């Protein structure tokens, strides 16, 4: 059982660009103990000048990244890149494992290039591993209802397969069989994607294995929960990274006035700008 998750965070703004940091966490179970490996944090200073370099990096990994893209969105893309890189590393280095992803197997979006995701799944399949992707939130609806609402009254553990979705929606590809998973008692249920190219019974077996070998709280695997916790940035870490950047590179974080707050006072809610 191996889980991977990556977090990205905006660290601040300099006079010439954006500061961000990414960090990944891999968690696996070893002799009834959870073990983790954290990779990062990696801080980045994204400017108009180094945008091209970043573009090249992304393109090498099949990520769509138009040069006109706003640098504000780059941190999340960089997080995706690290996540895919870690997922590839896990697919390549494990055999017969259950690999837990945070998210879905929907490909062809800006953060999930179809070729890249297909390759990841293929590598895992070839090494007899099964990828289970848990989405905390899904935009998919079935008969007008949110997908996860269907598992409200079912008795856990239960997997509801949703077959009605087409394999592709324009450029978007659904590379997994979509299920609603309610694996334990509680109010939560999740969208679960299992690689379409894995025989269905193998996919179900993988979920059974998950039930038997991992702790599940509110239907969510503990391994994946830990991966999320260990990758997430706390406020202290953000301040620490700011200090590192200032100390190491002499970059000064600028504080821009909150225009909304200035204009609307206490009514100036929502994002700054």
């Amino acid at each position: 059982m191996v889980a991977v998750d990556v977090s990205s965070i905006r660290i601040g703004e300099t006079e010439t660009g954006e500061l961000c940091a990414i960090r990944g966490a891999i968690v696996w179970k070893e002799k009834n103990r959870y073990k983790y490996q954290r990779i990062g944090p990696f801080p980045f200073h994204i400017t108009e000048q180094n945008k091209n370099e970043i573009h090249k990096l992304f393109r090498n990994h099949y990520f769509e990244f138009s040069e006109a893209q706003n640098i504000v969105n780059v941190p999340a893309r960089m997080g995706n890149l690290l996540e895919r890189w870690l997922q590839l590393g896990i697919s390549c280095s494990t055999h017969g494992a259950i690999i837990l992803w945070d998210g879905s197997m929907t490909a062809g979006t800006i953060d999930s290039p179809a070729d890249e995701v297909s390759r990841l799944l293929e590598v895992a399949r070839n090494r007899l591993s099964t990828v289970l992707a848990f989405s905390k939130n899904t935009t998919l609806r079935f008969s007008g209802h949110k997908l996860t609402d269907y598992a409200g009254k079912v008795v856990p553990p239960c997997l509801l397969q949703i077959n009605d979705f087409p394999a592709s929606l324009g450029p978007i590809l659904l590379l997994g069989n979509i299920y609603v998973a309610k694996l334990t008692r509680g109010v939560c249920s999740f969208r679960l994607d299992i690689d379409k190219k894995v025989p269905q019974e193998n996919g179900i077996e993988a979920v059974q294995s998950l039930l038997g070998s991992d702790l599940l709280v509110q239907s969510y695997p503990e391994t994946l929960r830990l991966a999320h916790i260990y990758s997430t940035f706390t406020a202290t870490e953000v301040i620490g990274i700011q200090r590192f950047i200032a100390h190491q590179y002499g970059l000064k974080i600028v504080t821009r006035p909150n225009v909304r707050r200035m204009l609307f006072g206490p009514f100036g809610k929502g994002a700054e700008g």
Partner: protein
Amino acid sequence: MVPSEKEQRDNRMRLYKKEGNSIQILSSPSDDVEKGDYLLVEDNMVNRKLITQVIDVQFASVPGILEELLRDSTTEEQVYGENFDPLGVSSHINHIQDARMLICKIRGTILNDKLSVNSSWLPCRSKSGITKIPVNSLLAHVGGNDGLPINIGETKDGSPLNITAHDLDGRLNIITGKKGTGKSHLSKLLVLGLVDYGATVVVLDLNGEYTGMGLSANGDGGNEYSSRVHVLTPGANFKVSLAQMGLSVILKIMIHALDLPGTSTREFKHIWKTLCQQRKISLENLGEAIKQSGGNMHVRDALFSRYYSLVNSGFFTDNEDSATSFEKLFEKTKKDGGALVINLKDVSSVDRQIVLEYTLGVLVKILGQWKIKSVFLFAEEAHLYLRETYWEDIVTRMRHFGLFTNFVTNQPDTIKENIYRQADSIFLFNFTNERDLETVSKAARVDSETVKSLAQELPPHHCLLIGKAVQDFPVMVKVRALDIKTMGQTRLFFTDTNN
């Protein structure tokens, strides 16, 4: 080691908050600042400086710290792992986690090099520079009397700390702290410091701790003070004759030490005066006179019982040659100074009262006659022998006679609040008990927060100096060692007989 300019910039302490006379300073873990240190908040724009003292060091309230700790609180038995951090960012994160908040008290303001106690000024938060100042430079800056230094020990920064003998002259001082922290040691240090400058010191030594002051530490003979330390043991080498004491002194003994009732006192006065007129004052004659006295049998019995207390104390003698004369002893100490140690060890409480009433009575008499300029009195656990009415007398009236008292106690609540309020300096050793600290914190010369926070963590042989001796800048000091024989150690049952 002098920190580089870059290090100084990186580790710059920042002014965070000011409330009343308290300020909070944000500091990094690498800043070498501890409780008791002095910091100078300097606002160059207005040429003003704020002198503050750190009274507590706390963790800064950093956002996200709870999540951080919760994440890390998972025991190694459940979750363990490694961090791949090639850039070394985590050291900066740890730095933030360990950020400190220094809780400081404002001790004064320096405006154009002049010190004032004003704490209402608010320095610039973003521009003010904050630096640690050595205690000695601080004390040198605030001035004080430089003459007659007595080296107490060393400050936290390792520099010697001197007070001056002037700081004890005409002053009331209290040395307090829990058992075994080094009160008596400091007391001896002050006694010998005063003796060094020719002062006369009288020590009321309850446990015989000061009797080794004239002996070297290894016990192989006398030290430099051997000729100036005079140990007087009541009943042994400290005896007095009735003839040398006046009526007022013997009356104090009879009334306060021996509880003689009023009627009997009147009869005693009559007997005493008669003997005086006959020039026949002696212990033997006094007994005979009481026997011969007419009047009430109960009065005679009362007088007899007191008379036998005097006789049984062994403190009185009719042999003038073996009688101790304070005047003669003071003559000896006049030139080079000296300490008269009255060894009250193994003296019963009644006899102790007799000795004390006599000693204080004679001291006041001698001082009143200007036979000696002044006497420094060191009283250990004075509540055990000093009667209620003496306290006020000692700190108010006797001060004007030239009797300057230093109380030494491990029970601070035995000294009245008004004494603390009048104390000029307090030498405070460790107390862990909140109530004890509460008592001491009533001293007028320092705020209670400082007392409670600093004194609670003082290691043995470290004391907090408060008051005039340190120009009202509380200073933590490690008391220096002395080359004197240590007495007054607790005799243990489980001692190693092989050693």
